[in-house]
């Protein structure tokens, strides 16, 4: 197996999952992942592959988020179409969709740094790697993660509670 193939096989799934969670769009995530691997191919040496790949992907997301307003509008349009099409979905699918929507809202409620730290940690990056990617001290990663996890859980619970409240009002 070549270096290229090994790199791709080892990290592609994790990178795409990280990006999908970050962006909420699998196609977009695949694009960013592709671009990340292409950049890796242009490197002669990578000392820490995983850290490098996630750092580049994170930076690409930042860059795109700044400049690609048009794509975001496209995604908003897709989301609107999805909502319109979501008429008679099976219960399980609906439940999952709502769960995912709550999770998305909760994640979006986090500060960017907290969100990044959380997603990177979920993909198994260690504290020094996370610190390097986010440009923060290693000693502050634990605090960042503890805050992120608490806020995520609280925001998720708040979403669920708000939805239950809306359902209650609709029923009465």
């Amino acid at each position, binding site marked *: 197996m070549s*270096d290229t193939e090994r790199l791709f096989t080892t990290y592609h799934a994790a990178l795409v999952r990280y990006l999908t969670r970050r962006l909420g769009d699998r196609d977009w995530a695949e694009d960013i992942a592709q671009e990340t691997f292409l950049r890796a191919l242009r490197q002669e040496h990578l000392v820490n592959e995983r850290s490098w790949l996630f750092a580049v992907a994170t930076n690409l997301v930042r860059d795109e988020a700044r400049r690609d307003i048009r794509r975001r509008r496209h995604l908003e349009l897709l989301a609107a179409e999805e909502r319109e099409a979501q008429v008679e979905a099976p219960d399980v699918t609906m439940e999952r969709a709502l769960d995912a929507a709550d*999770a998305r809202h*909760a994640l979006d409620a986090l500060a960017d740094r907290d969100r990044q730290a959380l997603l990177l940690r979920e993909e198994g990056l260690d504290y020094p790697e996370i610190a390097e990617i986010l440009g923060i001290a290693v000693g502050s990663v634990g605090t960042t993660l503890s805050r992120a996890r608490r806020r*995520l859980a609280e925001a998720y619970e708040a979403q669920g509670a708000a939805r239950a409240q809306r359902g209650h009002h609709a029923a009465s």
Partner: protein
Amino acid sequence: MPHPDEGLIHAWLDGQLPPDEAARVERLVATDPAWAEAVAEARGLVAASSRILAALDHVPAGVIPQGTASRPARRLPWWTKAAAAVVLVVGGSVVVMQRAPDPMTTPAAVQTPAILNPTVIQKDAPRAVQAPPAIARQSAPASIAVAKAPRPTTDALSKPPAATAAVAAPTAPAEALPVPPPAPLALRSAAPAQPTDDSIGRATLARDVARRAKRDVTPRETVLEQMVVAGMPAKKSTVMGGVSAFSARAGACYGVRDANVPSDAGVVMRVVRTDGDTLFLEPMQGRTSLRAWVIWRDGAARGAMSAAPDARGAVPVVATPAACPAP
């Protein structure tokens, strides 16, 4: 007793503290109820976070209109994917095959539709990354009860994070990510860089995704696909940048050696034909059953060589232009 430090506790649960610091936290957790309670809560938060994030991996089925779920810009012409497969071979794949049709003689007849059909690739690609993280599956409670997180037993608390990682912390990635090797990774040849064609690389990656989504392929099968595609006619060449008229023409000679054995003296082979980017070589003398096929890029010609008619037992080779021996 110091007040519980939440950041420190999360670092401990994540197994990210140095041994002495971890031991200190462990003692505090074992002896101070406030620390024990804080750890219990932190465990709940860690598990809850993993479960919440795993929910983002579920793409609702049947609620997104088919026509809008993917972007048209991702459609690629078939030849791009074929050329992309060629690039993989150039990248110096370790070629170990058991069954492969001889690309010298049967290039196109055995091409799999999935390689050539862009629709299949586009359709199947997302499935490659669908699996939710294992940690999420392990620790997925029905609801998120942050305040009601069960307090672990003293036994559990006193264990180091590594022993309780399965429930406590997502220390392991969803798919086991190996520790990167300490040695620098050489991804490209050190030769002067040729202009990079990103579309080729993109297609390569897209094809890799599709291939892995399509079925579980063994490295041998992967190589087989590459080899088969490498033998197919490439109608449009985009990776010929480094090839010279001298080295590409039929009749030119190359010294071909095992890519994994730098000391290998190799064998001089003659280019018997060219097909797109691919040069097909046969030995000048001696083992006439030898066949090699290489692609020139970035100052080196790389490919595979086999002595068997069905390309079984092919080895990766590097070829360099050489003077043809006198007849």
